């Protein structure tokens, strides 16, 4: 009987360090223990962008970096029995499975690939459910994607059928970890205490380096060894669901501070962290440093899972454009502010406009302009500033017209503006709603790859 499972994280988001899984797999393999590696690559909008790619190319729509991520580790994992679980299927898990199967064949290894689908709610039946649960959804023709957050169960099912790799679309991030745990230990689906702990172990893993010194360094206050080569996390989870967070070899660190920051990341009520599998509770959690980059988290528990599942709905969000221009030297800030006023006065009135001054107030402000109107109280005087003007609207021509007013600052704006850059791109908007569990029917299929 397995008493312990190691779970490593190979990616914490779609743009993550591409070489991170290599050290994780090396360490998992060297441990000789039962192990799994998870890949979390789906942000809120990532799936909608994948859906757009799939519309244009039906054989695409999965994580674009999938091949690059798995190529160095697939053979090692399959041969060592390290289960790979990833939501890198995005909008097209079957196509991702096909790619993985081809990769396995290329690397001369036989593999069973579990494909989890059923999260996509964009079909007629799904849409009916969504409309019944929310009256704030946009027109059907504007919808790009609608995906329910599946839980751990279909991952457990796929692993139960002998999958070496499980590829999913939208599942709750911690479920990627909880799936292999339930499979390994046979935890009951109403063992809220253990499911709560396993879920929070998954929560700590799902953002990769964010628990091992990534997104953490503050020189002189929170220093990180070798930040250019951070070892991604590896959790050791026991049958009783107690766990220790450690990391792969390399730089980075795991201590009370890194774990506390990540434990609370994107958490609202610490007593009620909602997932499809359990309502996790960290309100009594305590963090125990064991030394050598190993940290135990005690006091986590769980409560009954929510009755509904969350669905993220993405839709056509019009266009966003950005224009920038720099001013330097005496009175630079005054010239940048004047340029902003000129652009605002000349731009179409039916689009949203926001101004920032990089070097003074580049991100702190609000779209409403309250901070902008009180600029002097936020920023230090400086002589090297860059005006940024952002425009948004549904009418591309109007947004373009606004942008053109930034470009015109070269000849018609305040003195000595330089370095104009302009960009315009379509935007995906997102909203969410909650639907009955019974409306979602996850499906698991197995694809065989032969060496």
């Amino acid at each position, binding site marked *: 009987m397995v008493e312990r499972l190691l779970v490593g994280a190979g990616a914490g988001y779609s743009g993550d360090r591409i070489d991170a899984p290599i050290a994780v797999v090396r360490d998992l393999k060297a441990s000789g223990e039962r192990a799994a590696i998870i890949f979390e690559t789906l942000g*809120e*909008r990532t799936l909608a962008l994948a859906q757009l790619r799939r519309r244009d190319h039906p054989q695409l729509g999965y994580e674009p970096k999938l091949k690059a991520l798995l190529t160095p580790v697939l053979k090692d994992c399959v041969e060592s029995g390290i289960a790979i679980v990833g939501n890198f299927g995005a909008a097209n898990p079957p196509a991702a499975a096909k790619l993985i199967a081809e990769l396995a064949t290329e690397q001369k290894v036989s593999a069973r690939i579990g494909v989890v689908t059923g999260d996509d709610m964009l079909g007629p039946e799904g849409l009916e459910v969504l409309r019944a649960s929310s009256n704030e959804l946009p027109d059907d023709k504007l919808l790009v994607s609608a995906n329910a957050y599946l839980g751990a169960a279909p991952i457990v099912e796929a692993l139960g059928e002998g999958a070496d790799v499980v590829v999913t679309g939208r599942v709750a991030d911690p479920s990627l970890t909880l799936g292999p745990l339930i499979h390994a230990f046979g935890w009951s689906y109403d063992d809220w205490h253990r499911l709560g702990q396993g879920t929070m172990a998954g929560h700590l893993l799902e953002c990769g380096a964010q628990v091992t010194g990534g*997104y953490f360094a*503050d*020189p*002189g*206050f*929170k220093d990180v060894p070798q930040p250019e080569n951070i070892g991604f996390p590896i959790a050791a989870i026991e049958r009783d669901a107690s766990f220790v967070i450690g990391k792969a070899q390399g730089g980075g660190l795991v201590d009370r*501070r890194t774990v*506390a*920051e*990540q*434990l*609370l*990341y*994107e*958490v*609202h*009520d*610490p*007593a009620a962290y909602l997932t499809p599998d359990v309502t996790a509770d*960290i*309100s*009594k*959690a*305590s*963090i125990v440093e064991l030394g050598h980059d190993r940290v135990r988290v005690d*006091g986590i528990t769980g409560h009954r899972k929510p009755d509904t599942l969350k669905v993220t709905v*993405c839709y056509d*969000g019009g266009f*966003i454009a950005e224009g920038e221009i720099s001013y330097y030297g005496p009175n630079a800030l005054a010239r940048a502010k004047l340029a902003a006023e000129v652009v605002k006065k000349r731009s179409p009135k039916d689009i*949203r*406009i*926001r101004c*920032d001054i990089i070097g003074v107030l*580049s*991100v*702190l*402000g*609000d*779209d*409403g302009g*309250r*901070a902008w109107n*009180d600029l002097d109280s936020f920023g230090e005087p400086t002589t090297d500033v860059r005006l*940024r003007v*952002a*425009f*948004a609207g549904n009418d591309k021509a109007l947004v373009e017209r606004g942008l053109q007013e930034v470009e015109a600052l070269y000849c018609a704006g305040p003195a000595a503006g330089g370095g104009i850059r302009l960009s315009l791109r379509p*935007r*995906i*908007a*997102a*909203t*969410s709603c909650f639907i009955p569990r019974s409306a979602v029917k996850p499906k698991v299929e197995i694809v065989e790859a032969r060496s």
Partner: protein
Amino acid sequence: MTEVQLHALAHARTGDKGNRLNVSLIAYDPVLYPLLVEQVTEAAVAARFAYRKPSAVKRYELPNMYALNFVLDDVLDGGVTQALNLDSHGKTLSFHLLGLRIPVPEALAKYVRVKPGDE
């Protein structure tokens, strides 16, 4: 009594879900936790972020972790898919909270962190 930025006493991280922001605030030393509880109230955080007009500010206490978790509603201009902000996630805002100045009693002055070289 001296006044220092929270940055010298605690660290923080933000997370976003839609138009809602959470900011954790974690004491560097457990002995500082009661001071954070006393000084960094919901009202103090609401005032710090007043220009973003939060519709609600809720504080959760995690004494075993020497941490507070703040949840601010409607401060992200619609969040990552709507806002015109360069930082539409609000990721940088943890350091806006850390810029808040609070009074520190003399008895705790030795726990105030100073960057090496800045003493």
